[in-house]
């Protein structure tokens, strides 16, 4: 009897504690997200009004207020539309959206980074159906192409950011580095000089963490003529250029020319070290400028292109987020309301406000012109983002590739053979 009792007790205890611990993490929570707008609730058509629900990502502290004002202004000027914007933090947004989808309550419009997974499940509408021609013409063509699957554009960009090399001018001068490195060889030579000048300063910042290791792969692959995809559009992860790129950066780590722990030090850790004058050079997004400028003792820094291998051209890494429209058995009135939403959002002044407020870069040509005219520093960044390369997020296997290249980098740090690791990843992804 006691055995049965014990087994029952153990089951009950494990059940309850497993639910508190592991179980909860893998199950999408059905509750309202903590970061959501308290005023936002499930929209319902009031009278003859057309209801549109939007889930938007929370980029910063001001995002909620900005959307709240937007909602008020939009509803104030559109008597026939009832717009409801729910702002959700990046930590929760994927879970929230997936839960809504599995409960057949997808939002009408979603602002997030990825779109291919939703498209693969036939959940999205082709975006051109939902955006007026006038608004659609505002986007950079290269940006729209990033959301192209089988010749159809499924999403439009809301904002972008680009990466470049940041360097501490004072450290480079003191270490005798006369010219800012533009090639891999010059970069290594500069790192060696900085290390010889002061062993307590890290010459080069590397982030190979789960958070952003894929960016590290892109920085060196793209500046060595490599890529995630081959010319024929199939995965080419184990190309000679990619192997050489990973070996180069792992070599810098092993030679002690980088931060001490690239597998656990994120870009934010590097950003802090750079702002504190403990890191001489790093690759980062445009927001680092304002981060460094806002510190107590701003360092004297410069921005340059990401160094490339001899004879290869440099390339910036662009990152962009998107708007997409879910297929919810919509009426023509609703599609018109959605078009009106985008017209309102991408209205040049309002859109520039949004991008400047979030400290990102614009994804529309007109927005870029306004920002460049207002701020000369932004002009160079807008030029960089206009020519940047993007991750192949339209590929259905991108999430596996992203995690795969991070794993390769981390295994290589632990002594793994880069060629063998990339061969194995290629076989796994392409097979």
């Amino acid at each position: 009897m006691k055995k049965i009792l014990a087994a029952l007790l153990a089951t009950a205890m494990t059940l309850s504690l497993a639910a508190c611990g592991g179980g909860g993490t893998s199950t999408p929570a059905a509750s309202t997200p903590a970061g959501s707008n308290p005023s936002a609730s499930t929209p319902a058509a009031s009278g003859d009004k057309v209801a549109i629900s939007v889930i938007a990502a929370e980029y910063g502290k001001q995002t909620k207020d900005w959307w709240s004002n937007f909602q008020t202004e939009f509803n104030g000027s559109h008597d026939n539309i009832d717009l409801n914007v729910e702002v959700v933090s990046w930590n929760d947004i994927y879970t929230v959206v997936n839960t809504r989808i599995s409960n057949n309550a997808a939002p009408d419009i979603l602002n997030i980074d990825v779109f291919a997974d939703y498209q693969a499940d036939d959940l999205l509408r082709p975006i051109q159906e939902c955006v007026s021609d006038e608004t659609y013409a505002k986007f950079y063509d290269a940006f729209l192409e990033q959301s192209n699957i089988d010749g159809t554009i499924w999403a439009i960009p809301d904002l972008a950011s680009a990466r470049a090399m940041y360097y501490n001018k004072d450290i480079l001068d003191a270490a005798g580095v006369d010219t800012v490195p533009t090639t891999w060889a010059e970069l290594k030579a500069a790192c060696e000089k900085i290390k010889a000048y002061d062993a307590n300063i890290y010459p080069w910042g590397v982030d190979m963490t789960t958070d952003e290791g894929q960016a590290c792969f892109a920085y060196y692959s793209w500046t060595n003529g490599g890529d995630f995809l081959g010319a024929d559009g199939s995965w080419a992860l184990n190309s000679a250029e990619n192997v050489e790129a990973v070996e180069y950066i792992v070599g810098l780590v092993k030679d002690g020319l980088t931060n001490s722990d690239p597998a656990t030090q994120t870009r934010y850790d590097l950003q802090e070290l750079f702002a504190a004058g403990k890191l001489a050079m790093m690759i980062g997004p445009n927001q680092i400028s304002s981060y460094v400028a806002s510190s107590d003792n701003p360092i004297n820094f410069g921005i340059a292109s990401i160094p490339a291998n001899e004879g290869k051209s440099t390339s910036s890494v662009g990152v962009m987020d998107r708007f997409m429209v879910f297929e919810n058995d919509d009426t023509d009135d609703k599609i018109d309301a959605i078009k009106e939403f985008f017209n309102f959002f991408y209205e040049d002044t309002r859109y520039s406000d949004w991008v400047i407020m979030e400290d990102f870069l614009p994804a529309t040509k007109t927005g870029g012109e306004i920002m460049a005219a207002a701020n000369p520093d932004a002009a160079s960044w807008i030029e960089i983002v206009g020519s940047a390369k993007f991750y192949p997020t339209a590929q259905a296997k991108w999430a596996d590739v992203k995690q795969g290249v991070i794993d390769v980098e981390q295994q290589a740090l632990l002594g793994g053979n880069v060629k063998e690791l990339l061969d194995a990843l290629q076989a796994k992804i392409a097979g």
Partner: protein
Amino acid sequence: MSTKTPAAPARQQSQQREPRLPNPGNKKLFRTVEPYIWIAPSIILMAIFIVTPIVKVFQLSMNKVTRAGKLKGFNNFENFTTVIKDPSFALVLKNTILWTIAVVVLSTLLGFILALILNNEFKGRKVARAIVVFPWATTLVIQASAWKFIVNTDYGTLNTLLMKMGIISAPMNWTSTPAAWFTWEIACGIFVTIPFVCFCVLSGLQSIDNSYYEAATVDGAGYFQKLFKITLPLVKSSLTVSTVLNIIYVFNSFPIIWTMTKGDPANHTDTLVTYLYKLAFYNGKQGEASAVSVIGFIILLICASIYMIYTLRKGDEDL
């Protein structure tokens, strides 16, 4: 706010209730149903917040789940086979077992010793007990962040302290290998688990009648004889509870490892829980993540059952 009507005498209350249940049959029925009414809220809450997620996890683990969270039907346990075939799963399972055993065994041992010390009469005992509670009263994320800060190479307090004491001349990298990171994570795990064991054991120690020790002293028993023949057998039930709960808590612990390393590099510091989190929310593989969750649940169920059956049987034999 009304301040009148404090507790009415019991007889008066029963007199007030009487007119509502005049029929003895109804009263009997009420008595039978009454306990279920009282436990109904707990049962309902458990069903919503515990049973439903568990059922959902089992359902997800046996279905093909798209990245957007759509269920595409039973997939012949493919999630389980994919997870088990992945070479990193064996590493993660090994880490989980090592993590659970190291944290539970060492924290039980240290917590027990600390409880013995705190059970003695000494000046400032209350303050010492309060200090022991501190790690328990702080959230795990804060604890793990503090530990990460302490061992940081560049601005960590450990390096600063050792340099000020003149023990080292330049900052040392305390986390140069995955094994070093994992050791620090285990150390943090032990530190935050000790208070729980300590207070479980302390409650057991305080219930032991002092006359046992007096009798043993008269019979000439030494410190260790008293410890092993009196103290240990009498706090065994407290230790059982703390150990079983710890096995489950530590096995499922997420914040320490996630805050310090996120399981990096290359899964070398991952446990099942951080691994399934990455599978679900970084790789979008909710089906496989749920399969890992179910495997963890089964392992825990077996461990907890064996341990409880064993200790209860021992209890029977002792009687």
